[in-house]
């Protein structure tokens, strides 16, 4: 059967509009699609209706338990919970810190990952291989463990403080500051970015680099005009995945960040648990969701563009 279909494919176009293959494709993609629809799409939809004040049906139970629940007063719902969040004195600070940490950490991660990947691509050798392997270690350390490790390293009774005290230097306590969140998120996000970017750079043929050098291009010119542009897609993928991960981070800001302002991931958990305001916590979740979707658009656009360039679309 399959071989028959392949023959048919060869005769027709590559994207085949014949019934068989497209049915097979649909059959293959249907189970994951259904799972995403039922277990991700539906809860999001229910969450959206709850944030808009629909407090019956699947939202009945949570509406009984929660505090400060707003019920809908129009057919489409109410924006009271959104109003609560936007006028909450904590929200702007939290949003600001979340965006600040996301932008700064992503930039740092990209710069560090790019420099390690370029070192491996341009100089290479044993040292570079060891360096890349070492830099991937954090991938295998659970986030909770690394958060505590960083906490004991930079805390008020931590290694840095104790060590520098011997030389009469008062090293600042970094825990409970945004700096500690940045250190933590960079540590946890770096390995994926390095894997992504270094594999992108490895795929660039030596011939391109050598011919540029033959024409007298400096190392910086090779990096700026050949390596980075050709690895644009993996860099954008690394950037979008890293920033979405940092945007929704919870453990690192919980353990290492200040009490207030805090990142939205922690604040959502506070509102849901400690303050028992599920509607407001959902509103914040949708705001994070909207920002993440914005980043995802960049990712999808770059994917489509690279697919067009390589003739897959």
């Amino acid at each position: 059967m399959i071989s028959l279909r392949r023959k048919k494919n060869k005769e027709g176009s590559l994207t085949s509009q014949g019934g068989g293959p497209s049915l097979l494709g649909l059959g293959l993609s249907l189970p994951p699609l259904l799972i995403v629809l039922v277990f991700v799409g539906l809860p999001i939809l229910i969450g959206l209706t709850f944030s808009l004040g629909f407090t019956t049906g699947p939202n009945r139970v949570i509406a009984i338990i929660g505090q400060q629940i707003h019920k809908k007063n129009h057919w489409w719902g109410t924006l009271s919970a959104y109003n609560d969040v936007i006028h909450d004195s904590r929200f702007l600070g939290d949003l600001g810190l979340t965006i600040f940490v996301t932008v700064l950490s992503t930039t740092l991660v990209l710069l560090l990952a790019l420099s390690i990947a370029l070192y491996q691509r341009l100089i290479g050798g044993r040292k570079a291989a060891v360096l890349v392997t070492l830099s991937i270690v954090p991938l295998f350390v659970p986030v909770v463990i690394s958060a505590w490790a960083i906490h004991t390293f930079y805390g008020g009774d931590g290694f840095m403080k104790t060590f520098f005290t011997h030389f009469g230097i008062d090293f600042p306590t970094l825990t409970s500051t945004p700096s500690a969140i940045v250190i933590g998120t960079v540590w946890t996000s770096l390995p994926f970015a390095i894997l992504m970017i270094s594999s992108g750079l490895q795929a660039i043929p030596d011939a391109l680099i050598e011919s540029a050098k033959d024409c007298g291009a400096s190392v910086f010119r090779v990096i700026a005009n050949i390596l980075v542009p050709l690895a644009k897609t993996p860099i954008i993928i690394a950037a979008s995945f890293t920033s979405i991960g940092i945007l929704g981070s919870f453990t690192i800001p919980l353990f290492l960040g200040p009490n207030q302002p805090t990142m939205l991931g922690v604040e959502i958990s506070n509102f849901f648990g400690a303050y028992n305001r599920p509607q407001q916590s959902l509103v914040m979740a949708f705001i994070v969701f909207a920002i993440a979707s914005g980043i995802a658009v960049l990712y999808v656009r770059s994917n489509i563009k690279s697919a067009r360039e390589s003739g897959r679309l």
Partner: protein
Amino acid sequence: MKKSLSLALAVVAAIGLTVPASHAASSTIQLYISADTNIQDLWVKTLVPAFKLAYPGYDVNVTFDLHGDHDAQETAKITAASVLHKDPGVDLIDGGFTTTLGAAGLLYRPTPGLMPNIKDLNKTVLAAGKGGIPYRASSVLLAYNSTTVPTPPATLDDLLGWIKAHPGKFTYNVPSGGGSGYAFAQTVIDKYLSSADRATLVAQAAPELEAKWAQGLETLRQLNKYTYGQNGTYPANNAETLKDLATGLVDMGTVWSDQFSSALKAGTMPANIKVTAIKNPALTGGASYLGIPNSSTNKTGARLLANWVLSPVAQNLIVGGTLNGFPVIPLNKLDPKLVTAFAGVDILNLRAGYLSANANDLKSMWASTVPGK
């Protein structure tokens, strides 16, 4: 006289008999514990084996949820079961969310007729549970480094004065992160409230009184530059305050009595750290509540276990075991050797924390007005 006595005996016997009579119906009690490992040990290693010895026909199936990570799901599950008249799979709950369920009217309300031992409980503490059954208590105390602080503050005003005189040497954890820090925040706020307002906040949801918290919150905000770190940051939870005390980062902090005693016994807290109770007002303490969901299919078994936990035998185990908990029944019913530990603490009249709805609002208001401001 004789007749009435025999009648009374018959009634007592009948109450005693109604419970074991339903043995055959359901002999497994589903116990759900949402707490730290010390509470797990209390039940699994101490209370449950002793209960099974006393009632050989019963079995207790324990489900344990560390740190209450699944409180929200469990609350939703029990609420849904109650609304839909289905079996929630839980007969007795020991966890912080019991009072939330009680406030939502989802708990069975115990009566002395079916649970005789509740007559020994403090009425206010029992009423605050809204169906929750207090079974042990603990209080928040002021822990201090006796080497650097020879005479600890005796009142809240003394404490506030001490904090300002010793910048960076006192801390309390984020109220939403743990009860010991919460107790300090509520106590400072209570300083400015009338006793009538305090009583209302303990008993019922009272959003109209929350405006009166402003003065206390302002006092707390002004402490930002004097507490540990001196920048308005606070430890995340009870354990971190204990760690800060043990490592000498701070000289004073608020701690839970039971967690402190356990740490002292385990050797993780140096012996020079001591605890004391302050006055005017005292730091809050409170009971931990058991709850029997309305929808439980084995209320008889749950009542039997809860009633037994309130008996002097079980209360002695709570006081004398590794937990170092406070009892909830009068001290004269307990082993006199164990009771000496409570000299100076009025354990049956602990200053109560607010009702959970008010407490949740207080945690939220503290977060928006105090840290980093």
